[in-house]
Protein backbone atom coordinates (compact mmCIF):
# COMPACT_ATOMS: atom_id res chain seq x y z
CA UNK A 1 0.00 0.00 0.00
CA UNK A 2 1.40 3.42 -0.94
CA UNK A 3 1.82 6.12 1.68
CA UNK A 4 -0.99 8.16 0.07
CA UNK A 5 -3.26 5.13 0.24
CA UNK A 6 -2.44 4.70 3.93
CA UNK A 7 -3.24 8.35 4.62
CA UNK A 8 -6.50 8.04 2.69
CA UNK A 9 -7.41 4.99 4.73
CA UNK A 10 -6.82 6.93 7.95
CA UNK A 11 -8.86 9.91 6.78
CA UNK A 12 -11.75 7.66 5.75
CA UNK A 13 -11.64 5.88 9.10
CA UNK A 14 -11.62 9.00 11.30
CA UNK A 15 -14.22 10.80 9.18
CA UNK A 16 -16.41 7.70 8.76
CA UNK A 17 -16.91 8.48 5.08
CA UNK A 18 -15.28 7.64 1.75
CA UNK A 19 -12.77 10.27 0.66
CA UNK A 20 -13.96 12.03 -2.47
CA UNK A 21 -11.80 15.15 -2.45
CA UNK A 22 -8.54 15.45 -4.38
CA UNK A 23 -5.10 15.38 -2.75
CA UNK A 24 -4.77 19.16 -2.86
CA UNK A 25 -8.26 19.99 -1.64
CA UNK A 26 -8.82 21.10 1.93
CA UNK A 27 -10.09 18.37 4.21
CA UNK A 28 -11.47 21.12 6.44
CA UNK A 29 -13.29 23.31 3.94
CA UNK A 30 -14.76 20.22 2.23
CA UNK A 31 -16.22 19.14 5.57
CA UNK A 32 -14.28 15.86 5.67
CA UNK A 33 -12.54 16.61 8.98
CA UNK A 34 -13.87 18.54 11.94
CA UNK A 35 -11.63 19.52 14.87
CA UNK A 36 -12.04 16.22 16.65
CA UNK A 37 -11.59 14.04 13.58
CA UNK A 38 -8.42 16.04 12.92
CA UNK A 39 -7.18 15.14 16.39
CA UNK A 40 -8.00 11.49 15.81
CA UNK A 41 -6.24 11.59 12.44
CA UNK A 42 -3.03 13.00 13.94
CA UNK A 43 -2.98 10.18 16.48
CA UNK A 44 -3.60 7.62 13.74
CA UNK A 45 -0.78 9.08 11.61
CA UNK A 46 1.58 8.72 14.56
CA UNK A 47 0.60 5.09 14.98
CA UNK A 48 0.65 4.24 11.28
CA UNK A 49 4.02 5.85 10.53
CA UNK A 50 5.65 5.21 13.93
CA UNK A 51 6.39 8.86 14.57
CA UNK A 52 5.75 11.26 17.44
CA UNK A 53 4.44 14.61 16.23
CA UNK A 54 5.65 17.35 18.59
CA UNK A 55 3.20 19.93 19.92
CA UNK A 56 4.99 22.61 17.91
CA UNK A 57 4.00 20.81 14.69
CA UNK A 58 0.33 20.49 15.68
CA UNK A 59 -0.70 23.24 13.27
CA UNK A 60 -3.85 22.51 11.26
CA UNK A 61 -2.16 23.67 8.04
CA UNK A 62 0.22 20.70 8.27
CA UNK A 63 -2.77 18.38 7.93
CA UNK A 64 -5.13 20.37 5.72
CA UNK A 65 -4.94 18.11 2.66
CA UNK A 66 -3.54 14.75 1.66
CA UNK A 67 -0.73 16.56 -0.16
CA UNK A 68 0.14 18.66 2.91
CA UNK A 69 0.13 15.58 5.12
CA UNK A 70 2.52 13.90 2.70
CA UNK A 71 4.73 16.99 2.68
CA UNK A 72 4.76 17.02 6.46
CA UNK A 73 5.65 13.34 6.62
CA UNK A 74 8.52 14.04 4.18
CA UNK A 75 9.98 16.39 6.79
CA UNK A 76 9.86 13.59 9.35
CA UNK A 77 11.53 10.90 7.26
Amino acid at each position, binding site marked *: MTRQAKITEIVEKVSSQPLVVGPDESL*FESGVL*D*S*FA*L*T*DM*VGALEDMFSIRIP*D*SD*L*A*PRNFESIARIEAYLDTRS
Partner: protein
Amino acid sequence: MAYLQAFGAYLPSRIVDNHEIAAATGTDAEYILRASGIEQRRFAAPGESVSSLGICAAKDCLESAGLAARDVGLLLAASSSSERRFPGPASSIGAGLAINGVPAIDLPIASAGSLFGISLAAHLAPAYGNVLVVASEVMSRVVERTPAHRDTAILFGDGAGACLVTAEPGFAEIRDSLLASDGDLAAALRLDLNAPLYMDGRTIILQAARKIPRAITELIERNQTTANQVEVFLMHQANFNLITRVAHALAVPEDRFFLNIQRYGNTSSASLLIAAAEWRQQHAAPIAGPLVFASFGAGLHWGALLAAPPSVGNRL
Protein backbone atom coordinates in the same frame (compact mmCIF):
# COMPACT_ATOMS: atom_id res chain seq x y z
CA MET B 1 -0.51 21.79 53.55
CA ALA B 2 -3.83 23.04 52.12
CA TYR B 3 -7.28 21.57 51.80
CA LEU B 4 -10.43 21.82 49.74
CA GLN B 5 -13.14 22.91 52.14
CA ALA B 6 -16.19 23.60 49.97
CA PHE B 7 -17.44 24.64 46.54
CA GLY B 8 -20.23 26.93 45.44
CA ALA B 9 -21.93 27.95 42.23
CA TYR B 10 -24.39 30.36 40.75
CA LEU B 11 -26.15 30.06 37.40
CA PRO B 12 -28.35 32.80 35.97
CA SER B 13 -32.00 31.81 35.64
CA ARG B 14 -32.44 32.34 31.89
CA ILE B 15 -32.10 29.03 30.03
CA VAL B 16 -31.08 29.32 26.38
CA ASP B 17 -31.59 26.15 24.38
CA ASN B 18 -29.95 25.10 21.14
CA HIS B 19 -32.94 26.12 19.05
CA GLU B 20 -32.48 29.76 20.07
CA ILE B 21 -28.74 29.68 19.32
CA ALA B 22 -29.31 27.79 16.07
CA ALA B 23 -31.75 30.40 14.84
CA ALA B 24 -29.26 33.20 15.47
CA THR B 25 -26.28 31.42 13.94
CA GLY B 26 -27.85 29.76 10.93
CA THR B 27 -27.32 26.20 12.06
CA ASP B 28 -29.50 23.53 13.63
CA ALA B 29 -29.92 22.35 17.19
CA GLU B 30 -28.81 18.80 16.41
CA TYR B 31 -25.53 20.06 14.96
CA ILE B 32 -24.80 21.99 18.17
CA LEU B 33 -25.46 18.93 20.29
CA ARG B 34 -23.35 16.71 18.06
CA ALA B 35 -20.45 19.16 17.86
CA SER B 36 -20.30 20.01 21.55
CA GLY B 37 -22.57 17.88 23.74
CA ILE B 38 -24.34 21.07 24.81
CA GLU B 39 -28.13 21.09 25.10
CA GLN B 40 -28.60 24.42 26.83
CA ARG B 41 -26.72 27.20 28.58
CA ARG B 42 -27.58 30.10 30.89
CA PHE B 43 -27.43 33.80 30.01
CA ALA B 44 -27.09 36.54 32.59
CA ALA B 45 -29.92 39.04 32.93
CA PRO B 46 -29.27 42.66 31.88
CA GLY B 47 -28.76 43.72 35.50
CA GLU B 48 -26.29 40.95 36.27
CA SER B 49 -22.52 41.28 35.92
CA VAL B 50 -19.33 39.26 36.31
CA SER B 51 -19.08 40.62 39.86
CA SER B 52 -22.70 39.96 40.83
CA LEU B 53 -22.53 36.37 39.61
CA GLY B 54 -19.26 35.91 41.45
CA ILE B 55 -20.70 37.27 44.69
CA CYS B 56 -23.60 34.79 44.52
CA ALA B 57 -21.22 31.85 43.94
CA ALA B 58 -18.96 33.03 46.76
CA LYS B 59 -21.89 33.21 49.20
CA ASP B 60 -23.02 29.73 48.17
CA CYS B 61 -19.51 28.40 48.81
CA LEU B 62 -19.20 30.09 52.21
CA GLU B 63 -22.61 28.74 53.21
CA SER B 64 -21.51 25.22 52.25
CA ALA B 65 -18.35 25.69 54.32
CA GLY B 66 -20.31 27.03 57.28
CA LEU B 67 -18.12 30.13 57.35
CA ALA B 68 -18.77 33.85 57.18
CA ALA B 69 -17.20 36.17 54.62
CA ARG B 70 -15.20 37.81 57.43
CA ASP B 71 -13.36 34.48 57.81
CA VAL B 72 -11.78 34.91 54.35
CA GLY B 73 -8.14 35.99 54.40
CA LEU B 74 -7.56 36.27 50.65
CA LEU B 75 -9.78 36.45 47.60
CA LEU B 76 -8.67 35.29 44.13
CA ALA B 77 -11.06 36.03 41.27
CA ALA B 78 -10.68 34.54 37.80
CA SER B 79 -12.53 35.96 34.82
CA SER B 80 -11.97 36.46 31.12
CA SER B 81 -15.11 38.47 30.47
CA SER B 82 -14.74 41.36 32.89
CA GLU B 83 -16.78 44.39 31.84
CA ARG B 84 -13.83 46.77 32.11
CA ARG B 85 -10.05 46.72 31.63
CA PHE B 86 -9.46 47.65 35.25
CA PRO B 87 -10.14 47.21 38.03
CA GLY B 88 -11.06 43.59 37.55
CA PRO B 89 -13.96 42.02 39.42
CA ALA B 90 -11.93 40.83 42.43
CA SER B 91 -12.26 43.99 44.52
CA SER B 92 -15.95 44.39 43.60
CA ILE B 93 -16.64 40.80 44.65
CA GLY B 94 -14.83 41.54 47.92
CA ALA B 95 -16.95 44.67 48.40
CA GLY B 96 -20.10 42.65 47.66
CA LEU B 97 -19.08 40.23 50.39
CA ALA B 98 -18.43 43.18 52.74
CA ILE B 99 -14.78 42.20 53.23
CA ASN B 100 -13.11 45.43 52.13
CA GLY B 101 -9.58 45.36 53.44
CA VAL B 102 -9.06 41.72 52.53
CA PRO B 103 -6.64 41.50 49.57
CA ALA B 104 -8.45 40.62 46.34
CA ILE B 105 -6.41 39.56 43.34
CA ASP B 106 -7.63 39.23 39.76
CA LEU B 107 -6.64 36.32 37.57
CA PRO B 108 -7.62 37.36 34.03
CA ILE B 109 -7.22 33.83 32.73
CA ALA B 110 -9.92 32.28 30.59
CA SER B 111 -10.84 28.63 31.08
CA ALA B 112 -7.86 27.63 33.23
CA GLY B 113 -8.22 30.59 35.62
CA SER B 114 -9.96 28.67 38.39
CA LEU B 115 -7.43 25.81 38.24
CA PHE B 116 -4.60 28.33 38.51
CA GLY B 117 -6.53 29.97 41.36
CA ILE B 118 -6.88 26.76 43.39
CA SER B 119 -3.22 25.93 42.85
CA LEU B 120 -2.11 29.40 43.97
CA ALA B 121 -4.53 29.26 46.91
CA ALA B 122 -2.95 26.01 48.07
CA HIS B 123 0.40 27.75 48.28
CA LEU B 124 -1.01 30.89 49.90
CA ALA B 125 -3.40 29.35 52.45
CA PRO B 126 -0.67 28.71 55.05
CA ALA B 127 0.05 32.46 55.01
CA TYR B 128 -3.44 33.92 54.50
CA GLY B 129 -5.71 31.34 56.09
CA ASN B 130 -8.96 30.82 54.21
CA VAL B 131 -8.51 31.60 50.52
CA LEU B 132 -11.69 32.05 48.52
CA VAL B 133 -11.28 31.32 44.81
CA VAL B 134 -14.05 32.71 42.63
CA ALA B 135 -14.43 32.31 38.87
CA SER B 136 -17.16 34.26 37.12
CA GLU B 137 -17.98 34.72 33.47
CA VAL B 138 -20.57 36.50 31.35
CA MET B 139 -19.49 35.00 28.06
CA SER B 140 -22.81 35.77 26.35
CA ARG B 141 -21.67 39.41 26.03
CA VAL B 142 -18.31 38.64 24.42
CA VAL B 143 -19.40 36.21 21.71
CA GLU B 144 -21.17 37.28 18.54
CA ARG B 145 -24.22 35.20 17.76
CA THR B 146 -24.08 35.40 13.96
CA PRO B 147 -23.46 32.77 11.27
CA ALA B 148 -19.91 34.11 10.83
CA HIS B 149 -19.12 33.29 14.47
CA ARG B 150 -21.17 30.11 14.71
CA ASP B 151 -18.37 27.92 16.06
CA THR B 152 -17.89 30.06 19.16
CA ALA B 153 -21.47 31.26 19.58
CA ILE B 154 -22.81 27.74 20.10
CA LEU B 155 -20.43 26.95 22.97
CA PHE B 156 -20.52 29.58 25.64
CA GLY B 157 -22.72 30.31 28.61
CA ASP B 158 -22.66 32.41 31.77
CA GLY B 159 -22.11 31.34 35.36
CA ALA B 160 -19.87 31.48 38.39
CA GLY B 161 -18.22 29.04 40.73
CA ALA B 162 -16.25 29.26 43.95
CA CYS B 163 -13.93 27.16 46.05
CA LEU B 164 -12.69 27.64 49.60
CA VAL B 165 -9.10 26.51 50.14
CA THR B 166 -7.96 26.39 53.75
CA ALA B 167 -4.97 25.59 55.90
CA GLU B 168 -7.36 23.79 58.24
CA PRO B 169 -8.36 20.22 57.32
CA GLY B 170 -11.09 19.92 54.71
CA PHE B 171 -12.69 17.07 52.78
CA ALA B 172 -9.67 16.72 50.49
CA GLU B 173 -6.00 17.53 50.80
CA ILE B 174 -4.39 19.31 47.87
CA ARG B 175 -1.36 17.14 47.14
CA ASP B 176 0.17 18.62 44.00
CA SER B 177 -0.49 20.64 40.90
CA LEU B 178 1.09 21.10 37.49
CA LEU B 179 0.60 24.41 35.70
CA ALA B 180 1.96 25.39 32.29
CA SER B 181 1.74 28.24 29.80
CA ASP B 182 2.77 28.76 26.16
CA GLY B 183 2.42 32.20 24.63
CA ASP B 184 3.38 31.12 21.13
CA LEU B 185 -0.27 30.25 20.51
CA ALA B 186 -1.79 33.23 22.34
CA ALA B 187 -3.50 34.41 19.15
CA ALA B 188 -5.39 31.14 18.70
CA LEU B 189 -7.95 32.00 21.39
CA ARG B 190 -8.33 35.61 22.38
CA LEU B 191 -10.63 38.48 23.20
CA ASP B 192 -9.28 41.65 21.60
CA LEU B 193 -10.49 45.09 22.58
CA ASN B 194 -13.79 45.97 20.91
CA ALA B 195 -14.01 42.64 19.10
CA PRO B 196 -15.87 39.42 19.73
CA LEU B 197 -14.16 36.33 21.08
CA TYR B 198 -11.98 34.63 18.46
CA MET B 199 -11.09 30.97 18.54
CA ASP B 200 -9.09 28.89 16.07
CA GLY B 201 -10.94 25.77 17.12
CA ARG B 202 -8.77 23.29 15.22
CA THR B 203 -5.56 24.54 16.84
CA ILE B 204 -7.11 24.70 20.30
CA ILE B 205 -8.57 21.20 20.12
CA LEU B 206 -5.34 19.73 18.70
CA GLN B 207 -3.32 21.26 21.51
CA ALA B 208 -5.84 20.54 24.28
CA ALA B 209 -6.33 16.91 23.31
CA ARG B 210 -2.57 16.43 23.61
CA LYS B 211 -1.67 18.66 26.57
CA ILE B 212 -4.46 17.80 29.02
CA PRO B 213 -3.85 14.01 29.16
CA ARG B 214 -0.11 14.60 29.29
CA ALA B 215 -0.42 17.02 32.23
CA ILE B 216 -2.70 14.62 34.11
CA THR B 217 -0.42 11.67 33.44
CA GLU B 218 2.70 13.52 34.57
CA LEU B 219 0.95 14.75 37.72
CA ILE B 220 -0.46 11.43 38.83
CA GLU B 221 2.67 9.46 37.96
CA ARG B 222 4.90 11.73 40.04
CA ASN B 223 2.48 11.13 42.91
CA GLN B 224 2.63 7.34 42.55
CA THR B 225 -1.00 7.21 41.43
CA THR B 226 -2.63 5.76 38.33
CA ALA B 227 -5.51 7.12 36.31
CA ASN B 228 -7.61 4.12 37.22
CA GLN B 229 -7.26 4.92 40.93
CA VAL B 230 -8.77 8.37 40.48
CA GLU B 231 -12.26 8.65 41.96
CA VAL B 232 -13.39 11.47 39.71
CA PHE B 233 -11.92 13.74 37.06
CA LEU B 234 -13.27 17.28 37.26
CA MET B 235 -12.42 19.05 34.02
CA HIS B 236 -13.05 22.43 32.47
CA GLN B 237 -16.31 21.82 30.64
CA ALA B 238 -15.09 22.97 27.24
CA ASN B 239 -16.62 20.42 24.91
CA PHE B 240 -18.05 16.94 25.50
CA ASN B 241 -16.05 15.53 22.59
CA LEU B 242 -12.81 16.82 24.09
CA ILE B 243 -13.56 15.34 27.50
CA THR B 244 -14.26 11.92 25.99
CA ARG B 245 -10.97 12.05 24.09
CA VAL B 246 -9.11 12.85 27.29
CA ALA B 247 -10.80 9.86 28.93
CA HIS B 248 -9.75 7.61 26.03
CA ALA B 249 -6.19 8.94 26.09
CA LEU B 250 -5.97 8.08 29.80
CA ALA B 251 -7.68 4.72 29.19
CA VAL B 252 -10.30 5.34 31.88
CA PRO B 253 -14.09 5.01 31.51
CA GLU B 254 -15.83 8.18 30.36
CA ASP B 255 -18.17 8.03 33.35
CA ARG B 256 -15.22 8.77 35.64
CA PHE B 257 -15.38 12.33 34.23
CA PHE B 258 -18.06 14.49 35.81
CA LEU B 259 -20.13 16.21 33.13
CA ASN B 260 -22.56 19.10 33.25
CA ILE B 261 -21.65 20.80 29.98
CA GLN B 262 -24.95 19.60 28.54
CA ARG B 263 -26.81 22.01 30.84
CA TYR B 264 -24.47 24.99 31.10
CA GLY B 265 -22.25 24.98 28.02
CA ASN B 266 -18.71 26.27 28.27
CA THR B 267 -18.59 28.88 31.04
CA SER B 268 -14.83 29.40 30.61
CA SER B 269 -12.99 29.75 33.93
CA ALA B 270 -16.19 29.20 35.94
CA SER B 271 -16.95 25.77 34.48
CA LEU B 272 -14.45 23.79 36.56
CA LEU B 273 -15.84 25.15 39.83
CA ILE B 274 -19.48 24.85 38.77
CA ALA B 275 -18.79 21.20 37.92
CA ALA B 276 -16.97 20.68 41.22
CA ALA B 277 -19.83 22.25 43.16
CA GLU B 278 -22.42 20.01 41.50
CA TRP B 279 -20.24 16.93 41.92
CA ARG B 280 -19.72 17.66 45.62
CA GLN B 281 -23.43 18.28 46.11
CA GLN B 282 -24.10 14.82 44.68
CA HIS B 283 -21.22 13.17 46.58
CA ALA B 284 -21.22 14.67 50.07
CA ALA B 285 -19.67 11.59 51.72
CA PRO B 286 -15.94 11.54 52.53
CA ILE B 287 -13.98 10.85 49.38
CA ALA B 288 -12.37 7.44 49.04
CA GLY B 289 -9.79 8.14 46.36
CA PRO B 290 -7.88 10.85 44.54
CA LEU B 291 -9.59 13.71 42.70
CA VAL B 292 -8.05 15.20 39.58
CA PHE B 293 -8.89 18.67 38.30
CA ALA B 294 -7.77 19.69 34.82
CA SER B 295 -8.16 22.71 32.57
CA PHE B 296 -6.90 24.12 29.30
CA GLY B 297 -7.53 27.44 27.63
CA ALA B 298 -6.45 30.75 26.19
CA GLY B 299 -2.90 31.78 26.83
CA LEU B 300 -2.26 29.00 26.29
CA HIS B 301 -2.59 28.04 29.94
CA TRP B 302 -3.26 24.52 31.13
CA GLY B 303 -2.66 22.15 33.98
CA ALA B 304 -3.93 19.63 36.46
CA LEU B 305 -4.29 19.40 40.23
CA LEU B 306 -4.38 16.35 42.46
CA ALA B 307 -6.34 16.19 45.71
CA ALA B 308 -6.83 13.16 47.91
CA PRO B 309 -8.43 12.04 51.15
CA PRO B 310 -6.74 13.89 54.02
CA SER B 311 -3.79 12.15 55.62
CA VAL B 312 -4.52 10.18 58.78
CA GLY B 313 -4.69 12.64 61.65
CA ASN B 314 -6.04 15.40 59.45
CA ARG B 315 -9.39 13.79 58.64
CA LEU B 316 -12.53 15.68 59.49
